[in-house]
């Protein structure tokens, strides 16, 4: 198995760890291992440049989290941004939540394009004038200046998680959000930083009896009382916060019975769900485990309605993937705006899209060679043994250090963002 170390070609801190469009798709935020957030903004389409369909340019860059040290446990807290979630826009400023393993922060990103000028209490260099020399009153006036985008931390939600935060999700009421770690989920109010409500706690009394952990959680897109969380055992629980304060008892429990013919040594760990996402309609949930993506109907708990094989050719390679730690990779999955297509990443910088209606799927590659502007992505194919055709790539030639864990889909258009280690690729649908 090929394992060229892509990260040695760039700084490890530049490895992108999360990608998220905002609700209009105008902004695209990325977080990286170094704790930085970079926000891209789509260019307004101008009448002059019809061919330049809105491209994304850097809008703002800021350091969201710094490495910290927990003195009590002698542990370093990584600054890596695990998740970014946007709040819907309510005024001229943009708000987003970003989180590392322990602390969630609310950032305000705002533009400044005017500045006050004409102070008469200070001179040009900013030094205070001698009051005796001031004889008139002058009100400063706002004059235009070069656009400046500033990001300020408005809230810091800290010290609420013993374990590592894996998810955050903004509620549809826009007043609360939740943060989930391995064993607990907390509900926060945006205005209150020194308190949070614990709504799920699966920590056993005796830690030696621990058998499963929470791997992802998300609020329902429309019902502010409903949320789901996934587990390392491949199950999903749907909870209703109206039922009780502590949602330890689920309202619905989604689990597919194990296929005995697929059982293997590593069955347990490849069934762990790495991501769970509600469809935009709120009728379905999509889960990603190591080899498949599944779509579940909220009204049917005993099995998914659709199962898509992402890279089943890896099933016979699980042993090697355990050795090089790839079996622990946490892939994410996304819906397109109309919930008709789902997308997820794979290795060798491949990513896969599945059309739920036509049942067609495609494998594409995010690489510099293939991504000249306006080039059309060519579908790729992995050959699983036997004769390899000309354009196919064999399983053993796949580069497992080039993994696409994070992708995002524009909320209404066919624009996707794909994070390949420390590179971000943005692909748009061809315009006629």
């Amino acid at each position, binding site marked *: 198995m090929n394992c060229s170390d892509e990260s040695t070609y760039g700084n490890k801190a530049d490895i992108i760890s999360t990608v998220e469009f905002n609700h209009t798709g105008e902004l695209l935020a990325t977080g990286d291992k170094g704790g930085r957030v970079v926000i891209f903004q789509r260019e307004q389409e101008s009448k002059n440049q019809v061919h330049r369909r809105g491209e994304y340019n850097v809008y703002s860059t800021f350091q969201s989290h710094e490495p910290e040290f927990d003195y009590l446990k002698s542990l370093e807290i990584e600054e890596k941004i695990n998740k970014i979630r946007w709040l819907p826009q309510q005024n001229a400023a943009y708000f987003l939540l970003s989180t590392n393993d322990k602390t969630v922060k609310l950032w305000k990103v705002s533009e400044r394009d005017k500045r006050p000028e004409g102070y008469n209490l200070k001179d040009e260099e900013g030094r205070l004038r001698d009051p005796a020399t001031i004889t008139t009153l002058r009100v400063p006036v706002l004059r235009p200046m070069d656009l400046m985008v500033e990001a300020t931390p408005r809230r810091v939600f800290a010290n609420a998680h013993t374990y590592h935060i894996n998810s955050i999700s903004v509620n549809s009421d826009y007043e609360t959000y939740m943060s989930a770690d391995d064993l607990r989920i907390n509900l926060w109010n945006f205005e209150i930083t020194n308190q949070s409500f614990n709504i799920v706690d699966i920590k056993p009394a005796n830690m030696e009896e*621990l058998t499963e952990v929470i791997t992802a959680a998300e609020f329902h897109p429309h019902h502010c009382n409903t949320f789901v969380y996934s587990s390392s055992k491949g199950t999903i629980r749907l909870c209703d916060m109206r039922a009780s304060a502590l949602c330890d008892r689920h309202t619905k429990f989604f689990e597919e019975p194990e296929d005995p013919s697929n059982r*293997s*040594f590593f069955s*347990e760990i490849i069934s762990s769900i790495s991501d769970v996402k509600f469809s935009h309609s709120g009728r379905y949930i999509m889960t990603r485990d190591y080899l498949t993506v599944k779509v579940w109907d909220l009204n049917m708990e005993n099995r998914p309605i659709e199962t898509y094989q992402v890279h089943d050719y890896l*099933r016979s390679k699980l042993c090697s993937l355990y050795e090089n730690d790839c079996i622990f990779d946490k892939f994410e999955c996304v819906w397109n705006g109309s919930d008709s297509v789902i997308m997820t990443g794979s290795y060798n910088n491949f990513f896969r899209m599945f059309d739920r209606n036509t049942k067609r799927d495609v494998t594409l590659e995010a690489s510099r060679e293939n991504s000249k502007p306006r080039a059309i992505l060519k579908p790729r194919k992995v050959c699983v043994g036997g004769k390899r055709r000309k354009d196919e790539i064999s399983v053993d030639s796949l580069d497992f250090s080039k993994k696409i864990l994070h992708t995002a889909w524009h909320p209404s258009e066919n624009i996707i963002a794909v994070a390949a280690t420390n590179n971000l690729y943005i692909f748009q649908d061809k315009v006629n």
Partner: protein
Amino acid sequence: MEVQKEAQRIMTLSVWKMYHSRMQRGGLRLHRSLQLSLVMRSARELYLSAKVDAHESEPPLPPAPSPDPHLHPPREAHAAAEAAAPDGEQPFPEPMDTQEAPRAEETPARCAPRPAKVSRKRRSSSLSDSGDAGLVPSKKARLEEAAAEEGFSSELRDRLQPPPAQAEGAFPNLARVLQRRFSGLLNCTPAAPPTAPPACEAKPACRPADSMLNVLVRAVVAF
């Protein structure tokens, strides 16, 4: 035999990964530890059931000589491991850091007792809050590990007898099921991945598998 060796290799690898994960930035990750312990448990079951099968398939020997083949090599190798262990702290961080394949076999034998020391240090520096208990092994498991470390040679002979007996009762059916299912495991030969630790080429380190098993049992319990 193949199955046994493979299971042993996976157990070794898992212990190594488990130790290494403690050294990572960000500290011990609960999910990762859980997954590693699951694999280790499966490997242990596979190893024990393969051992049972190996015993069953051997021609019947008189009782006296039969324990010897198992006892002698582990005792020799154990002496070697014990001699290696007092090397002390100095060489220890390096094998972990360089991740050299040959060392991967040796260090787990030493590293399993290590976490006991490391975790004890960490434990004393933190409040005995139940919230923190999840990040370090429980006190009970740690004391057992310490006991295992000290009473190695004396326990060795005791331990060798019970596991087959236990395996006898619990595993015959499981062994058959596991062996049927693990053709995939056998096909994953270590020949292909260059980074894999050599499959039991380092014989002395491999041999005290049974004594390592004791420590592994405790490591699984602890996690």
